[in-house]
């Protein structure tokens, strides 16, 4: 969990170096999109739950897919358009496991992790809840 700038290049270089003998690395970077309305986004966590649960989630990905390693970096605090929110990477001998692990991790971070997101539109903050399609995405893994 990071409460300020998420340095994507630094994370990618370090992860790539640690997993330099892996066959491939898949990576997903989630950012604050510019939809013309959202002015800012804020993510809140609850330290006693959030980080232990994300560590468990990463462990689950490691045991579920044939991986060499995973990385999960998530921002908390206020972010503005274009700024990174979440970076997930998976290294594996073969690409399918890497793609699947990143997909699995993102689906769980979106709607099954101890994080609370609100967006500011037209000067007003609104709490966001997972969309039906987020829940459907998550249900693919059960």
């Amino acid at each position: 969990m990071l409460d300020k700038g998420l340095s994507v290049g630094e994370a990618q270089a370090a992860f790539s170096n640690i997993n330099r003998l892996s066959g491939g690395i898949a990576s997903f970077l989630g950012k604050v999109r510019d939809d013309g309305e959202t002015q800012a986004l804020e993510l809140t966590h609850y330290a006693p739950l959030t980080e232990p649960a994300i560590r468990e989630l990463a462990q689950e990905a490691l045991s579920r897919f044939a991986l060499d390693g995973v990385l999960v970096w998530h921002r908390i605090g206020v972010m503005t358009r274009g700024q990174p929110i979440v970076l997930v990477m998976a290294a594996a001998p073969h690409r399918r496991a890497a793609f699947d692990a990143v997909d699995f991790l993102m689906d769980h971070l979106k709607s099954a992790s101890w994080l609370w997101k609100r967006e500011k539109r037209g000067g007003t903050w609104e709490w966001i809840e997972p969309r039906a399609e987020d829940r459907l995405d998550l249900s693919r893994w059960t």
Partner: protein
Amino acid sequence: MVRIVYLGKFADWAGRDEEEFEAPLDWEGLAQRVEPRIAEELRGDRAHISLDGVVLADKQALSAKDGSEVALLPPVSGG
């Protein structure tokens, strides 16, 4: 005392991030003391309660002692 931590929209609804209630605290005591709409949402299955860092499988089994921390967790969204 039992420390109550409000997360997400519950903090907005309560008008604060945390407060203290008299110990011991059970489900009935909690539901009576928090804002009615927080209690109502906690009765549903998408909001959760944790006691000292452990999410309760059965919210109604809450039994918080002096010095405990109870977090009230609305539906989550990340990424």
